Each structure stands twice: as structure tokens, then as C-alpha cells.
């Protein structure tokens, strides 16, 4: 016993180091991208409130560009209304507006990790839930991963695990977009059949196959085609439509039929 105490006294520096290092690793491992608890914990909320204050202050410096962007968006939306007025009769039978928009502001965003997250200033009280899509006026932004009372965390397109189901606008072929891994402007599409003719600058839009995004939201434009020599599948890099470094205003997409879709799919799974 006496020896044991002396052992601890002698080596407490190394033992304490190991203890703290183990705590760190446990914290790191328990932080799952999909089911993390940090956003809902008291500490997380404190940090987010703090970042909210920062975002409020810094927001003033971006008012000019933000205004310009909102005006552009307004014009786009007004045009949209004009069009839909003419089509109202045609569309009366097929209401496909299953998404409602919840505006939110970005309070924190990272772009330099390999798993990048966005924190927004809307939470459960505003009707945000896990697995909702986020878009900006420019294009797709990410997917909500965790929600607390007043804030929500989302994995952005700049995340090594994200796959967004997309379509090439000119030939409607399905594909999946991933992040290239380092440059916050560039994404990559792998496994493109060689018979598809794609041009640089072609638009890549959401497929509408998931319940996260409506069909036709811009993800990016093709930057460069990479033709493979030995395989029969090409690849392409795309330039993201969303500029993550200047992202401030976003919209969370609430799918009104979400629970219905979910129960339908669960039923299918049970039958299998």
C-alpha cells in the first residue's frame, strides 16, 4: 500500500497526463457527427450564444453585400410569382410545394476541417428537426445533424461523409456529389458513365429523390471533366454554387409530409 502511494506520488505527472488524454479521446470519440450532444448541452449552448453575439456584430460589416444578395433573390422570387400566375390553372391539380422555408442566420461556420459544420440561430422552438436540408439563395448548403432549443448544427457540403443526390440539368442523369476534401469551393462527382456528354459549366441540381431538398435546387456547375483511361467511369469536379466563406443567410427546408414519408419507408423496411 505504501509502495503504491509512493508510486502515485512519483509518477503523478505521467498518470495525470494519461488520464486527461484518455478523457480527451473519449470526448472526441463520443462526438458522433449524426448524434452529437454538444449542441444540446449547456456548454454548447453557452458557446453558441457567444458566437451569436459575434455574428450580430460582424453582421453589420456585411450588410451591403447581404442587401445586394437579398435584392437579387427578391427579383428572382418576383419573377417566379409572375410565372406561376400564368400556370396556376395548369398546376391546380398537382400541388408539389411540400416544402416550407424557415429563414435562419449562420452563427458559426468552419471550412478548414475535413468535417465541417454550420451552426444556425434557429432550434426546436422554431420547428427545426434533425435531417432537414439547408439552402442559401445561391444553392445547397447542408443537412441538419443536431438541434438544441435555440440553435441547430448542420454538416455542410464540406464534410467528408456527405453525399448529395443530384441530377445533371441537361440530361437528367442521376449522380452523387461529394466534397473534394480541401478546397471549400470544389466538389466531386464520381462514377459518371462514359456515354454521357457533359460540358464544363453545366448545372448540377438536386434530384428530388430525398426528402431533404426539393427538385432542381442548384448545387454547382461542372468545373472540369476527368476522363479515366482504364475504367469505364468518368468523374467531374464541380464548383459549388454556395460560397461558404461568405455564407450568412440560409433557409431550412421543412418537408410537410416528412412523418408520412418516414412511416411509409419504415413499413417497407419491416416487410423486408
Amino acid at each position, binding site marked *: 500500500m505504501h509502495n503504491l502511494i509512493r508510486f502515485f506520488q512519483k509518477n503523478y505527472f505521467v498518470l495525470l497526463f494519461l488520464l*486527461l488524454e484518455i*478523457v*480527451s479521446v*473519449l470526448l472526441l470519440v463520443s462526438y458522433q457527427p449524426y448524434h452529437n450532444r*454538444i449542441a444540446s448541452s449547456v456548454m454548447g449552448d453557452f458557446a453558441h450564444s457567444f458566437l451569436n453575439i459575434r455574428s450580430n456584430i460582424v453582421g453589420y460589416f456585411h450588410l451591403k453585400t447581404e442587401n445586394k444578395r437579398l435584392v437579387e433573390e427578391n427579383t428572382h422570387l418576383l419573377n417566379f410569382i409572375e410565372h406561376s400566375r400564368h400556370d396556376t390553372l395548369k398546376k391546380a391539380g398537382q400541388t408539389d410545394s411540400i416544402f416550407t422555408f424557415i429563414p435562419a442566420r449562420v452563427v458559426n461556420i468552419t471550412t478548414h476541417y475535413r468535417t465541417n459544420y454550420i451552426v444556425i440561430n434557429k432550434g426546436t422552438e422554431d420547428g427545426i428537426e434533425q435531417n432537414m436540408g439547408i439552402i442559401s439563395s445561391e444553392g445547397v448548403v447542408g443537412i441538419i445533424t443536431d438541434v438544441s432549443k435555440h440553435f441547430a*448544427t448542420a454538416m455542410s457540403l464540406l464534410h467528408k461523409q456527405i453525399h448529395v443526390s443530384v441530377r445533371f440539368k441537361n440530361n437528367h442523369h442521376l449522380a452523387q456529389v461529394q466534397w473534394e476534401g*480541401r478546397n*471549400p469551393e470544389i466538389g466531386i462527382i464520381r462514377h459518371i458513365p462514359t456515354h454521357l456528354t457533359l460540358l464544363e459549366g453545366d448545372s448540377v441540381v438536386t434530384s428530388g429523390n430525398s426528402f431533404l431538398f426539393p427538385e432542381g435546387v442548384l448545387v454547382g456547375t461542372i468545373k472540369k471533366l476527368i476522363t479515366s483511361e482504364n475504367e469505364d467511369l468518368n468523374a467531374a469536379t464541380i464548383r459549388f454554387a454556395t460560397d461558404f466563406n461568405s455564407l450568412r443567410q440560409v433557409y431550412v427546408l421543412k418537408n410537410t409530409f416528412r412523418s408520412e414519408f418516414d412511416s411509409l419507408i419504415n413499413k417497407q423496411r419491416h416487410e423486408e
Partner: protein
Amino acid sequence: MKNSFFLNSIRFVVLLLFQVLILNHIRLNGFINPYVYILFILLLPLNISGWLLLILGFFTGLSVDLFMGTPGLHAGATVFMAFMRPTIIRVLSRGKDLEKIVEPSINTMGSSWFFFYSLFLVSLHHIVLFFFEAFNMNQLGDTLLRIVASIPVSEIFILLIVYFFRSQKKS
């Protein structure tokens, strides 16, 4: 002693705010982020007891993690750096008389000593940080690139701050 406690508390708060409010929003080349908060650990008194050094390292890292949404990442790296600090000091200061020196700085230890002292500890911190972030060996090349690119940037920032505040004190 009381004075040193006060000075270090101020330094902690200022460096943390500088890190999370300004530096974390700077992206050099898209993915290089300078980490300067570790200067707090570098400048702690030489005669600080081991347990306090480790605990302070842990909480400094955890505070940064809190703001970056990465629990354990910076805490683990900073604890490792705090753990290695006494060894690095011992190795670098062979033959030097450390009795009279309270805090490590350019004034007390000399420029070249402080350069190597900070470079070694910044490197150790960044190596652990980026391997923790990747948490596997698959992206070894990418991890090494991030380490090699980030170390000089952080080191330059730290030396600039140290030089800036040294000249302030003299005048």
C-alpha cells in the same frame, strides 16, 4: 505570485478571444488556420507545478473546443503539449541557470532559445491535433500536408505577438 496569477488570467482571456473571434475565421489557402492560443501554455511560469500545467492545458484546449464544436480535439493536443513542456525546457536549457528566471520569454531566455522552444511545442501540438482530427491513417498524406503547412503559420503568428509585446514593455 498574485501578480503572475492576474497577468496569466488576462493573457488567457485575451488569447482565447483573439483565437475564437478573429483567427478562427481566417483561412489561409482555404485550410490553414493559425492556432495562437497555445502561447498561453508557452508563457506560463517555469516553476509551475506539474498537475496545474496539465489541468491548465486541458482546460485551455477545451475552451477552444467549446467554440469550435470539436470536444476533445484541442484539449488532447494541448494536454500533450503541456506534458512535453518540462522536457523541452530541460533539453533546451542544459547548462543554463533557471533559478532566477520566473517566466520564459525572449527577454529572459534569448531569441534563439524562445524560437526553438516555441517551434518544438507548436510542432508537437499540431502533430497531435491533426492526427486526432483525422483519427485514422488513411489520409496520411493529407494529414502530413496540413501539419507541415500549419506549423510555420502558427509559429510566425506566435513570434510576432511575442515580439510586439516585448517592444511595448521596453518603451
